[in-house]
């Protein structure tokens, strides 16, 4: 249970980090919090020849609301979300979701952007990014590009990020007060990987759903929005019947993974339930 040997590089500027990645990104790995990477290295599922430590690049340690976006720097830790990092439904959703991410000591080290880069199918942050339509800001020596979350997550532990690129920032839209958000996750114990989870954001006017974002994680090989369920909800009054229809649409659309925790039928069942509950949570107290 010890990592294979690697050389260690700890640049103190973003430029120096990008230079290291340009030169050795193929057989190297960036470490931020290390709460997923180090276990994989200890199991030798990951054997990077070089480790590029991001923790000294202080310019990436930020978390701030700006121009309608929440800008999450690459070194913002999970624990920074224990209190809402911005106002409105986006901040409330993030503070609710963070309590489901692993455990307190893990949240002190692990980073939001690291979770996005790691792209575990059961990552809560990846689900939030997919549901809210995050922009992933990737930088290399060749320049910067912004990748929409819908194009970023490709499969389990697989993203659109190139080996010479670094996620410098993730941007989440700050939803206005017309939106409501909800989140529900099922895991066997507090802090365990979720087996199924749903995040929702609804824009409601006069008791009718005008826009719907519904994302499911932990079920397929990467978190994704659920267009059929969203369509089933838009134009409907906020009511149990509409929630049930959306939950049914999720159950009908997902192609669940199978592992020792859950077979496909069970995951499908859970996805239906987490979706219904996330919708109920979003609209709780709104006279539905």
């Amino acid at each position, binding site marked *: 249970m*010890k990592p294979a040997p690697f050389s260690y590089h700890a640049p103190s500027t973003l430029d120096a980090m990008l230079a290291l990645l340009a030169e050795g990104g193929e057989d190297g790995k960036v470490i931020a919090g290390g709460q997923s990477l180090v276990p994989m290295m200890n199991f030798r599922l990951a054997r990077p020849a070089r480790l590029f430590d991001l923790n000294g690049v202080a310019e990436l340690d930020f978390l701030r609301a700006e121009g309608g976006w929440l800008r999450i720097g690459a070194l913002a830790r999970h624990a920074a979300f224990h209190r809402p990092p911005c106002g409105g439904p986006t901040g409330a959703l993030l503070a609710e979701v963070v309590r489901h991410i692993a455990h307190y000591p893990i949240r002190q080290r692990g980073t939001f952007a690291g979770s996005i880069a790691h792209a575990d199918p059961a990552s809560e942050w990846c689900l939030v990014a997919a549901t809210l339509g995050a922009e992933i800001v990737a930088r290399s020596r060749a320049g910067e590009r912004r990748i929409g979350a819908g194009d970023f997550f490709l499969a389990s532990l697989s993203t659109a990020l190139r080996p010479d690129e670094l996620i410098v920032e993730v941007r989440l839209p700050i939803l206005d007060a017309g939106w409501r958000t909800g989140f529900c996750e099922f895991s066997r114990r507090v802090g365990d990987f979720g087996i199924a989870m749903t995040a929702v954001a609804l824009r409601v006017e006069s008791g009718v759903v005008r826009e719907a974002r519904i994302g499911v994680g932990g079920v397929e090989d990467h978190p994704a929005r659920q267009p059929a369920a969203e369509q089933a909800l838009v134009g409907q009054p906020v009511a149990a019947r509409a929630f049930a229809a959306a939950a049914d649409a999720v159950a009908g659309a997902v192609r669940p993974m199978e592992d020792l925790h859950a077979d496909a039928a069970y995951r499908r069942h859970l996805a239906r339930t987490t979706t219904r509950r996330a919708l109920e949570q979003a609209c709780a107290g709104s006279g539905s």
Partner: protein
Amino acid sequence: MTSPHDKLAVTLAVNGRDYRIAVEPRRSLADALREDCGLTGTHLGCEHGYCGACTVLVDGVPVRACLMLAVQAHGRPIRTVEGLAGDGPLHPLQEAFRDEHGLQCGFCTPGFLMLAAGVLEREPDIGDEALREILSANLCRCTGYQNIVKAVRAAARRIKEAAGRG
């Protein structure tokens, strides 16, 4: 050309004392504390961040020492279970774990003590539900956890009483 087996000079500031050691980059903080500093109070259970036995405080915050590299802890203040009492009387948490039967075999105890120490220093008035959620980070196979929760609550009271007198 550097080899990944080349040792790096690292200074670990543990419990107020500097340990100048030389370690490969892949040396975990937990292994460095035990093997290079001789501080075997920090226990290693799973070595992949699941059990919490190796929890120590870095910059005052509880972290898994098996998931941090020793080189990453260079120069940062570290506290381990050896530093709780030092040469003096037991820390209130240690007394409370003894009084409330918060341990049996003792393997997980250093991790629980450091987790609780870090949390109580930051949140002395933490509520029951939040405390239970935080303590769920670590595994214990003996106590069934109830006495650990009781012990931390008792310690929190004693620490506050002592502060009130001081």
